[in-house]
């Protein structure tokens, strides 16, 4: 709040500057800066809901952020690690379909996030993506509004067709990201404003990079990130009181040798612990992200993901992104691996129950000295809940493992992906809904092709 008062934030949209000015901020129109007083920050933060809900087209698939449960999601991506070749390539419409289908199947993915369809030559890539995602998952999902407010308006129309009824709980969420340090560009403000107007669950993101776009000291970067998020919350609540917002911060350091992001670093894990604590203090749901710097599915991607999922879960983040993420790409094999890593980490987070049943004094007495527990009723009943059951991780002894083909994690994860993609059927969406959605997408596309001179995502990117 000190920084919001002393330094302020850059606001590259005159309407938002005026709105802030009308509500007690010190605004400099020429510099496009607004300094936000503490009282306004406190008011807006207290108005923002402490719970944010979403619902899928399967009404049993719900997300309830802020109730103390940790949910999970993927991440945005513009590349994909190809399942056949292991090479990185630009993500395509087929990846939107396949990756969504995979995430529809993975039990730990609550909010599927698709990669970008970079092979689509259309002014409404966003709507094609929405269409494909909605068909391939019955869970609520996350979208990127490439055309800003226009995208969100179109998403709302499509959402109504799918859900058939208006609800406070929405089908999709979006992110509005502050460009660290402390600068809101026009597109992000556009997204923020339109989401707030429609009460779409909005991740308000600050993501300073330690030593690059934020102080190299973790505490300092959390100051910048918190200031950015709070300024976004202020704008959202001024536009529409009660707009659902989520505190998103994925800060990590710059590697001081390469100048590149060190996303899988221990410092990032510290941020993942701190952010849920800060957000809980503010009574806003929190979102952090598990990341890796590895360029392939390997030991590094395994341990870095585990080292960032585990602290996030123990710190009780409301939602953790990152399943399948690998830098700017997503990896199918990493997704199934992360699904299992999340299982393991959630088991740790579940800790242990201590009561008469679990203390098991009667059982201990019965088994006595030198006996065994394996055949007891207690073990037979309780192991289901007490012990995690990994599917990918090896638990065979070496000799047996060799006899069974010395299968690597790589191979097993790949097989699991292939199996899911060939057998999993997302629940069907009604034909008439599909047709109506298709006509909306194609209708918007025709309109925009006629009127827009701007470049579209080209076939070759």
């Amino acid at each position, binding site marked *: 709040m000190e920084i919001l008062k002393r330094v302020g934030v850059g606001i*590259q949209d005159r309407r938002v500057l005026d709105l802030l000015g009308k509500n007690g901020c010190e605004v400099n129109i020429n510099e496009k800066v607004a300094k936000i007083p503490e009282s306004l920050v406190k008011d807006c933060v207290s108005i923002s809901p402490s719970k944010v809900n979403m619902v899928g087209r399967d009404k049993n698939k719900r997300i309830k952020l802020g109730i103390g449960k940790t949910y999970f999601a993927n991440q945005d991506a*513009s*590349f994909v690690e190809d399942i056949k070749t292991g090479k990185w390539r*630009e993500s395509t419409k087929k990846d939107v379909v396949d990756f969504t289908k995979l995430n529809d199947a993975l039990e730990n993915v609550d909010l599927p996030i698709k990669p*970008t369809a*970079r092979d689509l030559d259309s002014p409404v890539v966003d709507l094609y993506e929405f269409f494909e995602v909605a068909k391939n998952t019955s869970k609520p999902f996350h979208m990127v509004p*490439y055309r800003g407010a226009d995208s969100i308006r179109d998403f709302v129309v499509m959402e109504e067709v799918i859900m058939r009824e208006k609800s406070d709980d929405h089908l999709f969420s979006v992110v509005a990201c502050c*460009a660290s340090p402390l*600068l809101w*560009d026009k*597109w992000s403000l556009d997204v923020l404003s339109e989401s707030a107007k429609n009460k779409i669950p909005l991740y308000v993101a600050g993501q300073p*990079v330690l*030593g*690059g*776009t934020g102080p190299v000291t973790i505490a300092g970067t959390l100051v910048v990130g918190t200031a950015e998020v709070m300024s976004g919350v202020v704008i959202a609540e001024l536009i529409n009181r009660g707009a659902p917002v989520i505190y998103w911060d994925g800060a990590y350091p*710059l590697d*001081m*040798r*390469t*100048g*590149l992001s060190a996303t899988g670093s221990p410092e990032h894990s510290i941020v993942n612990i701190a952010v849920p604590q800060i957000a809980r203090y503010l009574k806003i749901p929190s979102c952090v992200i598990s990341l890796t710097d590895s360029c392939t599915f390997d030991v590094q991607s395994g341990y870095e993901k585990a080292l960032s999922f585990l602290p996030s879960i123990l710190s009780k983040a409301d939602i953790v992104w990152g399943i399948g993420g690998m830098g*700017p790409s997503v990896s199918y094999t990493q997704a199934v691996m992360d699904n299992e890593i999340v299982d393991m980490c959630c088991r740790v987070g579940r800790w242990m129950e201590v009561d008469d049943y679990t203390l098991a004094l009667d059982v201990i007495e019965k088994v006595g000295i030198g006996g065994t527990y394996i055949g007891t009723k207690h073990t037979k009943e309780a192991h289901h809940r007490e012990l995690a059951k990994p599917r990918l991780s090896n638990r065979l002894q070496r000799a047996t493992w060799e006899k069974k083909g010395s299968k690597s994690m790589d191979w097993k994860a790949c097989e699991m992906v292939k199996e899911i993609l060939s057998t999993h059927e997302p629940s069907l969406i009604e034909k008439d809904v599909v047709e109506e959605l298709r006509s909306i997408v194609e209708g918007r596309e025709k309109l925009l092709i006629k009127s827009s001179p*701007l*470049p*579209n*995502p*080209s076939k*070759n*990117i």
Partner: protein
Amino acid sequence: MLLSDITDAVANGDSETTNKLVEEALEIGYKPIEIIEEGLARGLRKVGQLFEKGDLFIPDLVVAADAMHEGVKIVEPKLLEGNRKQKIVGKVIFGTVKGDIHDIGKNIVIAMLRANGFIVHDLGVDVPPEKFVEAINEWDPDIVCLSAMTTITILQQKVVIEKLEENEIRKNVKVLVGGAVVSDDWVESVGADAYASDAITAIQVAKSLLEGA
């Protein structure tokens, strides 16, 4: 010796002292070209060598590059009077494209380029295509570097290249693109000459573009 003091000030990233010593050196009568090559550039080269060894880091390089750049700005006008051209590896124009305000990557690459003997004119962020054209006509660079962070703003790189073609200056420069979402396919589809995914590779690519020119 004054020139070696300038070298040390640059190597320490001390812009204030560097500027003071440069003014002093000019007053005493040192040749501008000497101040740049024996004083300023030497300081940055020293830091560059220690960086390559792994003894110094990016922040050391950036502050040293900034100190040298500030010093050169003071000397440059005098250079033209003396009529002897500064030894440079190449001239670069660098900007983040229109609609994009991300610049941390750009700033690190610029520091590296300067550390490796390039003169770089930084056009800043949110640079419209026309400004790139203007800058090329004014500075006559060897390389134009375009930075973009997202799949939306990267499209502007295509617009800039098309603008250069429209103005018939595309053939006069090499275009090097960068940012989180570039790839070989992208380079081909927009008609750029190359891309670099990090600052160290950018130097190698820039040098090889000059050889090919």
